[in-house]
């Protein structure tokens, strides 16, 4: 279980997260939705210890990862897999070396077994015969899937997905959504996805949490979120240009167009 309590994070004067609380149960697929730049990725980076909070705690299976030493954090991270927004594959390494990175670094597995496991992972994400290609030779969708294969190579207990469908076409986006759901069911992992793509959220989530104005303002099953009475949630999930979110930001419909004419 992951328990985030009273999390505060600011970058200079800009307060991004404030007194944020969130609990993610073991084995569930939690999707965190919110506008671009609202701090979703920052929250995700706190969960894996890439950022330290100004205040608050992040408990992973009872251990507060904000207090552990770098060495302990590394061992906790062995239970994690993470798919980055741009896949973040290592340019200088081949697909095989990317996917098998952890196996080569931290296990004594013979090369043959590593090759077998890498092939299994690539097969799971629907890729074959690209073992020796470099990331520069892959399309955006292929990069994401290789990133996913890398994330699952060591049988993680928790997988984090940062905007998994951003930057790929709608068909590939749907394929990735299916993959995330299938892998979640098959590997019995805890999945945490941040996205602003509602189609993706409905497809992947057991529960959806909405991050707005530095904290979680709504949490529930996809149906509960769809039927939420909160106008902020309704504006976001329907993608309306007018509503409380744009009112608060002072954005008027067509304002940009009028300025540019």
């Amino acid at each position, binding site marked *: 279980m992951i328990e985030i309590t009273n999390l505060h994070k600011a970058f200079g004067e800009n307060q991004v997260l404030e007194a944020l609380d969130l609990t993610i149960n073991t084995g569930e697929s939690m999707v965190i939705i919110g506008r671009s730049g609202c701090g979703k990725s920052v929250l995700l*980076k706190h969960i*894996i210890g*890439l950022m330290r909070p100004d205040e608050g705690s992040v408990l992973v299976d009872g251990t507060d990862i904000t207090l552990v030493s*770098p060495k302990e954090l*590394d*061992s906790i*991270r*062995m239970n*994690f*897999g*993470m798919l*980055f*927004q*741009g896949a*973040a*594959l*290592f*340019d200088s390494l081949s697909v095989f070396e990317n996917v098998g*990175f*952890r196996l080569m*670094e*931290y296990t004594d597995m013979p090369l043959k077994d590593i090759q077998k496991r890498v092939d299994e992972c690539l097969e799971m994400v629907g890729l074959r015969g690209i073992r020796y290609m470099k990331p520069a030779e892959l399309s955006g969708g292929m990069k994401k899937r290789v990133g996913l294969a*890398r994330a699952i190579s060591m049988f993680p207990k928790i997988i984090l997905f940062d905007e998994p469908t951003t930057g790929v076409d709608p068909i590939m986006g749907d394929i990735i959504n299916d993959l995330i759901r299938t892998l979640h069911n098959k590997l019995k992992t805890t999945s945490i996805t941040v996205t602003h793509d509602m189609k993706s959220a409905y497809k992947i989530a057991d529960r959806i949490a909405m991050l707005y104005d530095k904290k979680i303002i709504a949490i529930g099953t996809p149906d509960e979120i769809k039927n939420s009475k909160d106008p902020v949630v309704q504006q976001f999930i329907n993608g309306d240009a007018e509503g409380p979110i744009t009112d608060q930001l002072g954005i008027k419909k067509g304002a940009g167009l009028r300025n540019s004419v």
Partner: protein
Amino acid sequence: MTLISLFRGAVAIAKHKISEFFLYIGGLTSLLAKTLLYMFAPPIRKWQILEQMQRIGVASFPIVLLISLFTGIVMALQGAYQMQKMSAEMYIASLVALSLTRELGPVLTALIVAGRCGAAITAELGTMRVTEQIEALETLSANPVQYLVVPRFFALIIMLPLLTICADFFGMVGGYLIGVGKLSITHSVYMKMTLDPLAVKDVVTGLIKSVSFAVVICTIACYEGLNSEGGAEGVGMATTSSVVRSFILIIVADCFFTALFYFIR
């Protein structure tokens, strides 16, 4: 009133710059300390070290050869300009040999490597930073200093002294070509005037300097790269900053070691 506000503004800027300077020095020191610590922590990534040695050392060899050869030629010609007036051409050999081993060989090689490889290291690590590859490394439980900085550090402290020895040699070859070919100094006299004044200490002090320059280049290049932000523009700025700051610190370190060796001779 205006003067006072101008003064206050200047003080505030100076304070900011001074704190930035100390933060930068602190950052470099911390990175160097971590690098020295992880140097002795297993696993030693010999294939990565060899790859970096190839990129930094072997690939820099042609340009080091060319520049040191021409430097030797220029030094011999410039020396001849003055020494011919006193019929002391044979001392050109000693001038070339001593200047190269004690000073020009290490400094020129370090400047070439800082410009060529330091910039490449910053650009590579900077790109990795802005494309989240460094964070990906951390999520895979790999330490970026151990994985990325240590192999480059090993490669630089091994290859820069070797390149310096090559630069010393080819610079002397350049001097020899002018001395024997143009100034009619005999082969035996040129060799004697090169080797007689040259002590082991001269070569060793040059090599100590080159190891210190390797530390400077690696620490600055990696620090700038690992702390890049702001996309392609940020990487470009970090690369420029890396080269400029390496050049400055190489000259400062050279001045320090020259003074040190002068006083402890």
